[in-house]
Structures are given as structure tokens and as C-alpha cells.
């Protein structure tokens, strides 16, 4: 039986913080006074997210989600909903861009404090097939804003 230590990329991928958000997702549930709702799924792997936003003027007052899927997609959704609170729409879209850059391996983005806990997901960039998992909630966000 293989007893070699876990691959360093794997340990980076499945950090404590990510597993904590996966098992104890923040802002999971339905938002009573949602102004924007979007459902997105990844037909290949079945990950699902329903994102709800309460936007007042230009400001995201609250974000919640319902979803199921892998640790990466669900942790990303949990972290994103935390980060979006009280951000303006342009700020939110800028964060989506930074997140996308981090997934492409941009080290500057991975150090960008504005991404908050999401920086824990920087390791996903080493696993190209999993990038779509981390970006699923962000794609839901941009869809919600554009709709």
C-alpha cells in the first residue's frame, strides 16, 4: 500500500479553511428579500448553486446561496457570499476578475488582500479541471448582476 505523504499541491488544495467552509458553509440558505437570483450548474460534474443577492441601489447588502457539489465549489460560494456583503456592484465585478486571475495562476492576485479568505483557493490553479468549480459561484454572480 502506498504510504507516501500527500502531494504538496494536494495539501495546498485542501486546506483546513476550505474544508471548514465546505462543512460549515456561511450564508447558506434562502434570502427573503432577494433582488437578484441565479441558478447555475456545471452539467459535466453536477455541481449546483442558487445564488441570491439583496442589492440596494449600487450596494450588495446581502448574499446567500443554496448549492451542492464538491468542496471547492461550495467553499468558494461560502467565502464569496461573505466577501460580497456591502460591496458595490463595480467592486464585486472587480473581485470576480481578481478571482479569475488567481485561478489563471496570477501570483499578484493570489496575494491581493481584497480577496480575503478566497486566497486559500489559490492552489486550485494547479488543478486545471477544478478551476471551473472555484469559479462557479463567481459566474453565478456575474450572471446575476448582468440579468
Amino acid at each position: 500500500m502506498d504510504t507516501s505523504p500527500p502531494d504538496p499541491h494536494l495539501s495546498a488544495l485542501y486546506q483546513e479553511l476550505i474544508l471548514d467552509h465546505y462543512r460549515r458553509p456561511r450564508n447558506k440558505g434562502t434570502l427573503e428579500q432577494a433582488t437578484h437570483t441565479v441558478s447555475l450548474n456545471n452539467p459535466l460534474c453536477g455541481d449546483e448553486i442558487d445564488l441570491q443577492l439583496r442589492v440596494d441601489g449600487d450596494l450588495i447588502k446581502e448574499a446567500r446561496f443554496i448549492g451542492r457539489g464538491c468542496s471547492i465549489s461550495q467553499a468558494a460560494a461560502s467565502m464569496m457570499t461573505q466577501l460580497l456583503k456591502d460591496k458595490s456592484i463595480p467592486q464585486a465585478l472587480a473581485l470576480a476578475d481578481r478571482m479569475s486571475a488567481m485561478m489563471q495562476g496570477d501570483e499578484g492576485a493570489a496575494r491581493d488582500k481584497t480577496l480575503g479568505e478566497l486566497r486559500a483557493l489559490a492552489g486550485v490553479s494547479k488543478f486545471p479541471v477544478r478551476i471551473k468549480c472555484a469559479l462557479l459561484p463567481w459566474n453565478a454572480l456575474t450572471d446575476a448582476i448582468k440579468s
Partner: protein
Amino acid sequence: MLDVARLRADFPLLAQRENGHSLVYLDNAATTQKPQAVLDAITDYYRTTNANVHRGAYDLAIRATEAYEAARATLAAFVNAWAPEGVVFTRGTTEAINLVAGTYGRANVKAGDSVVVTAMDHHSNLVPWQILCQENGATLRMVEITEDGRIDLADFGRALERRPKIVAFPYVSNALGTVNPAAQLATLAHAVGAVVVVDGAQSTPHLKVDVQALDCDFYALSGHKMLGPMGSGALVAKPELLDAMPPYHGGGEMISRVWDDHSTYNKIPHKFEAGTPNVEGAVGLATAITYLERIGRERIADHEQALAAAAIEKLTQIEGVTVYGPRGRGDRAGVVSFTYGDIHPHDIATILDQDGICIRAGHHCTQPLMRRLNVAATARASFYLYNGLDEVDALAGALVKAGALFGYVPA
């Protein structure tokens, strides 16, 4: 057990290393690796025989046609087809089923009729029937499965009460590995006058298949799941049904005479093979069949069942692992679907990949089945003749590591 070390030497790709580990390829229900003999057959075809088939007046084209038709005869013998002209080459199982739905189905299924499928059907043996029923105003009836992942025979009987026009089911479930009692199901369906369509994508590579003994009407198969090239496959059918069916795709080769406003059609199977066919695919598939026959399908089936049994035993010893599907050795092919606590199958697949282990994670193109199992996805290991017990050990070992990485604590 088969001599795996010797067999593996025939498969160049299996010598490759993945992520620094020897490759453990356990995704054979998705597609299989190819032996050198198949690769050589494809190259040789292009080096020595390539010309367009059924139309050349020169010797080279005649040899190409002979190679293509010899491949048809080889495949016909492999599944004991009713006749070689009852073998229509297709891109695979999906195209074969769409062909039946689009021709036989369109001509024979009318408003108010019903078509029966099962809750374990692959989307390729479900969506074509959904489209047909929506177009023709017919009802699609999905037969339920039992707790242990078999077709619910009581519900199957109830579905037949409506005297469906078509009954479709998989011989072997791609997601659960269940080997269905296909001959029994066909007899029951015929008793109410239905035509029987069997999805043979997962049975043809692994079991000795005799379509006449099954007594189905249509049987669909894929070459790439049985050591052959991608894009090869066939619809095997009763010739009298094919004769009476309208054509599928229009174009060259499928016609007899073409007038300004109408055409007459070629004899079967050519009536269903419009355009230049995939001759390299047919030739490669025939070579794969020769390879499989040299080993013997009964021995392959025994080998895979032993691997599946070993995998089920090892995996169920890991606390938190749930294995889906039947437990009997005779009614399960070499497919083992499982979940592991709250670790999502995609995470399992990523972690195993770092050890060079390839498994499938997802819904396996069986979303209705996943809903019934009450899971979004499963992880699936599927075996073939070149897999060994050491790879079952590697799978179990890597799963334990995945559990540790996730800090999985059994509830």
C-alpha cells in the same frame, strides 16, 4: 485471473506514468485503452489499403471494401448477429440508439402510444426516446429500480400493461454494474408486442453476447469501450426490421436511384450508412474483437468479476464508504460505484489522480438514477482485462489517504 503483466505489455499507454506514479487506469466504463495490434491495424489500413469503399473500380478500392465488409462479418459473428447485413456501422451506441428512435420510432410510435425505459438507463438510451415521445405525442414510462440497483420486475410488468411500442433497457448498467436479465426482459416485452432495444455499450466488451439468444430486436454497441477506436460502433438488428424502416441520414451510399425530387434507397445495411464510413474504425474494431476472442470473453468476465468482488470487499472495509449496486457476483460486471462519507466524488477523483489512479466522478450520464440513489454524484472504478488486484489495493490505499486529507471522521 488473467496474466495481467503479460497483457499490459500489449498496451503502450499503460506503460506511461501519471503524476510520477505508474498509471492505474480504472475508468474502463468510460473508454478503454488500445492494444498495439489495434494501433497497427489502423496504421496498416492507411499504409496499404486506404480508398473509398463501395465505389472504386480499381483494386485498391476493392481491397478497402473487402476490409470494411470483413470487419462487419467479424462483428456479426462476435455477437451472433442475425446476418452481417443486420450490422449497421455507427459512431457508437449513442448514434445507434438515435438511429432506431429516429427511424423505427418515428414511423411506428404514434400519439397515445408508450415507450418504456428504465431508471438506470444512460442518457443515450433515454434522451432519444424523450425526444421521440415529445415529437409524436407518446408517453415515456420509466421503470423503477430496486434498493439494490436492479430493474424492478414488478414495475416492469406494470409498465408493459400499457402495451408499449418500444421497450429499451441496458444489458449492463454503466453506473452500477448491474447485469440485467436481458433475455427475460425481452421475452416479457415481446409477449405484449413491443420491440426491444438493448443498450449493449457495457455488456459487449465484458460478457459473451449472443443477440439471437437474447432475442432482442435492436442491440447497440460502442467499439471504443472494447479496445477499439473511438467513433466506431454498430447497431445490430433483425434484418427484416431494418428492411422496413425508413432511412436515417440521406446522402451518398444509402441511395439506389436519385431523381430530381425523390430517391430510392440502397439495400441494408448500406441504406443506413450515408456518406463515407469510418473504415479505419471498423478495421480497428475487428482487430480488437480478434484480440478479445483470443483471450476469451468468459475468462475476461471472470477476471473482472473477481476484481469487482475484491474492490467491494476492500472498499467496504473503509468506514464511511458506501458501495452501490447488487452484491451478487453473477449479476455485477466490473463496475464499482461508491461514495465516501461527505467527501465529494470530484474531490476523491482529484486526490486519487495525484497517485496516478484514474476513476470517474460524477453522474455517469445517469441523472435519473443518481436522484433515486439520493446522491448528486458517485465515484466509479471500472475494470478491464489489463487491471490487476494490485490496482484494487492502490485504489483502497489512495482512498484511505483521501480520508486522512479530508480529516474524515466517521459519523
